[in-house]
């Protein structure tokens, strides 16, 4: 009896779910890059007859006629998957797309693979992805396992606060304030070791968006991590949140590649250099992270 009632309930629920499916994105959301202030995304010219001699990752992608790129799917403004359309968007995604175009892969030849921070090295060494673009800080520990092209962005640890909060102006005014970040992450350990706030005021969750939720409900006073990530959240709701804009660490973001793939690294570095020089980089920034209202300085490539 009970089983039957439940089954009927499920059936009805399932029908209701499938019957009223809406396509597309919420209508009140302005389409990416069409907010009027000339911040439109650039179009990338897909290069023809490219060859990167000696790159196994490139050969593999060319053989398959599609390229797999590792990205993040939960960082607004950087790399985010839209829940309603399944499309990826953001600064990192644009960089990934631009690099793919220079390698001869068009929009529909790209397959994005969402890979969280903890698995990046593994995915790259396994060859699951041709390259990885997703808030990937270049450091020596990682360089031992993989190699980096770039940096394509110069990030640094910063603070995200409520737009109407005037009591926090820099990292030195955090005393007595509740600060939130991801459990055990470097930014929160910086806060702890530099004693920026009391231990009891440190709040740690699984993801930044939970911290942002707590920020807006005033359960915490600041969210801390790389400014690029914070800008992405601020751009979502400019009237409610702002980034302080005084980064106190240096986090150069690079494109992760196989350890011995010098050929591909050089090729990508050339593409990045060109984009920095001809204004493409600036255009991408303005149409994505720049929407938060803050500016960014161009990074200098580190070729090795």
């Amino acid at each position, binding site marked *: 009896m009970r089983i039957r009632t439940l089954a009927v309930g499920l059936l009805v629920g399932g029908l209701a779910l499938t019957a009223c499916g809406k396509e597309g994105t919420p209508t009140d959301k302005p389409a990416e890059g069409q907010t009027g202030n000339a911040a439109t995304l650039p179009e990338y010219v897909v290069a023809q007859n490219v060859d990167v001699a000696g790159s196994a990752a490139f050969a593999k992608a060319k053989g398959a006629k599609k390229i797999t790129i590792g990205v993040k799917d939960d960082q607004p403004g950087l790399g985010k998957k839209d829940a309603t359309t399944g499309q990826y968007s953001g600064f990192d995604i644009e960089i990934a797309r631009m690099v793919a175009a220079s390698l001869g892969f068009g929009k529909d030849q790209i397959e994005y693979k969402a890979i969280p921070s*903890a698995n990046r090295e593994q995915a790259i060494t396994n060859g699951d992805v041709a390259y990885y673009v997703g808030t990937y800080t270049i450091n020596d*520990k990682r360089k031992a396992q993989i190699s980096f092209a770039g940096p394509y962005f110069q990030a640094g640890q910063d603070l995200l606060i409520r737009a109407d909060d005037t009591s926090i102006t820099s990292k030195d005014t955090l005393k007595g304030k509740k600060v939130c970040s991801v*459990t*055990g*992450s*470097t930014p929160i*350990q910086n806060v702890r070791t530099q004693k920026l706030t009391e231990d*009891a005021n440190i*709040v*740690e*969750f*699984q993801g930044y968006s*939970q911290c942002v*939720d707590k920020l807006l*409900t005033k*359960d915490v006073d600041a969210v801390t991590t790389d400014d690029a990530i914070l800008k992405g959240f601020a751009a979502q709701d400019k009237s409610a949140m702002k980034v302080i804009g005084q980064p106190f660490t240096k986090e150069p973001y690079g494109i992760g590649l196989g350890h011995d793939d010098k050929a591909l690294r050089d090729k990508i570095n050339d593409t990045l250099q060109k984009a920095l020089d001809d204004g493409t980089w600036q255009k991408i920034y303005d149409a994505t992270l720049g929407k938060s209202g803050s500016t960014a300085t161009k990074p200098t490539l580190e070729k090795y």
Partner: protein
Amino acid sequence: MNVLLDNLDLFGPFFLTTIELFALAAVGSLIFGTFLAMLRVSPVPVFRAFGTAYVTIVRNTPLTLVFLFMVFAFPLLKVVKLDYFTAAVVALTVYTSAFICEVVRSGINTVPVGQAEAARALGLTFTQILGQIVLPQALRSVVPPLISTLIALLKNTTIAAGFSVAEAGAIRQYLSERGENQLVGLLWVALGFIILVSVLSVVQRSLEKRWSVAR
């Protein structure tokens, strides 16, 4: 060994928090669980229904969801402001007491019917029968499943790591950021839990021995 010794500042306080979390939630759920069991055998039909509904819903909800509610939905009620440690204790208590309730209730069912009948013949009230005659006997007979539930509670404390409580479940993330060997670190965490569980098993055996003589 180095992973443990170099990071004693992690392992020590984090495991201590685990133990605190466990102790508070254990006491809380023993009290609340017994209360729920009393509801479920009470003469008032509505109370029985409440008890049943609570146990059914909570037993079929993942603990992580209980945590999500305590940490993200409960503050919206604006009743009291809980810090994250207290929220974790409450979430664990809410969840575990449903299991304790079922254990206690099965214990009540093992007490010979004559005991309650004799008590009723003496004119004792429901609370007196339960509190003075039935529950003391029932609790002794359910020591093993009770301790099993508490062991499950001890292991469940690791979920609090995702909700801003710095306890043993969070050690991995800290080790990973410090660039330590996570495999070795996790094995040490596992060993820590094996030790804690063994302590509980010893408690169980001694309680069983003492109470079986007394009966």
